[in-house]
């Protein structure tokens, strides 16, 4: 009798297993899966480079690059032209990349240097024009160049599904005119006979000076570059 009682749970377990398997026997179930999937997000890149700095955008905010001490020193070292104008040409590059059909344009605007600075002395506004390479950015290239009026510059057109990259090169020319002093030294005297004579005025008797502020305290002059995305870019 005792063994019968011990055997009862085993029998019950066997019956439960048998009934349970019978219940699920008729139910059908399956699952199929694809390989791992992925898409890409839109990649936007915008940067501005000069000979001594590179600014990379991480939003639509304008980028500000600066010129100053180095350019002022270069301007004074080069010296004036025939008209007594001091000039310096500085290259600036704008790089951009987009994907997902996003178009990107931009504006590039050099600000007027402080009139109290070397680059702004004389109040002559800077000029900017496109060049093919930074090396082409020279004072001579400014003559006859197609000057940029300051409007929107066309960058990468919209609708390109694959990533596209482009770099534009610009040349900014600052011109300045210092306080100019010209003097010609002459000597006037009388001969022993009392005749009044004057020394001839020639190149050796003339001198001039251009007065500029100290270039070592030159303030920064800003160039503002602003990315502009077309209406198809949800940025």
């Amino acid at each position, binding site marked *: 009798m005792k063994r019968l009682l011990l055997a009862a749970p085993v*029998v019950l377990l066997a019956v439960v297993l*048998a009934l349970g398997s019978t219940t699920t026997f008729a139910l059908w*179930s399956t699952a199929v*899966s*694809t390989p791992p999937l992925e898409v890409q997000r839109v990649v936007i890149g915008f*940067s501005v480079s000069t000979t001594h700095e590179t600014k990379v955008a991480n939003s639509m905010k304008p980028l500000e690059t600066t010129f100053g001490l180095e350019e002022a020193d270069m301007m004074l070292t080069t010296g004036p032209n025939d008209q007594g104008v001091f000039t310096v040409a500085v290259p600036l590059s704008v790089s951009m*990349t987009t994907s997902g059909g996003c178009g990107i344009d931009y504006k590039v605007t050099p600000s007027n240097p402080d009139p109290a600075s070397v680059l702004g002395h004389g109040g002559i506004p800077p000029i900017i024009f496109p060049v093919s390479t930074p090396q082409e950015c020279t004072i001579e290239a400014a003559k006859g160049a197609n000057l940029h009026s300051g409007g929107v510059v066309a960058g990468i057109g919209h609708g390109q599904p694959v*990533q596209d990259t482009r770099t534009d090169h610009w040349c900014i020319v600052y011109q300045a005119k210092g306080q100019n002093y010209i003097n010609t030294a002459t000597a006037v005297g009388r001969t022993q006979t009392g005749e009044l004579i004057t020394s001839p005025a020639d190149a050796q008797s003339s001198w001039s000076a251009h007065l500029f502020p100290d270039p070592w305290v030159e303030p920064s002059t800003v160039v503002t570059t602003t990315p502009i995305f077309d209406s198809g870019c949800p940025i």
Partner: protein
Amino acid sequence: MTSYTRTPKNRADRSPCRALPTRPRKGIALLALAAAFLAVSSVVTFALWKTQATQGALTQSGTMDFRLGESTWSCPEQEISGTFPSLDQLVLQPKQTLIIRQEILGTFQGDNLAIRFGVRFPSLPEGTTGSWHLERNSVQIISPRGIEESAITRDVVGVENGTWILQATLSIPADVIWVDPSQPVAESSHIPLGIFTITAEQERCGFGFLDPCEESS
């Protein structure tokens, strides 16, 4: 003189007290064996279903099987589309729509069979929303459902071999990534979506069962 030999193996000579316990041991062993056999056989046949079961006066029988056919994708805003191998080339802008259409080549034969379809995207990026629906011959037979929601088709009657289309419409928060244009594109520009799993389960509902099938559309 009669010789009497006591033979313990002779059942007739055993006392009733010793004979009784041997019978239940054999019964238990047989029952356990039967249970084990049933359990094992049900596991083996579970993945490939073909059965016949009787419930009262109604006989239900059938077979079910399905596999994936062609997979296509499209992005209506960009007016582009393709097949799955090229999906990783799709550059999705924020708030744009990704539509995935998956063919299901199925065999659903039977009487009064109901199938519960479900879709799972276990690894979608956080914030993804969307829906799915099932089409047969360009007609929705399961109306749009949430991504993790399953639904029961109408009863399958007779032979239903053919192609179903499961369409998932996803809105993925594909935020723009800002990069240095002078550098190669970082791997972070890719958005893993994970795998896309379609499940189909037989449901005991509708005609012949106590529970009604829920309306699917």
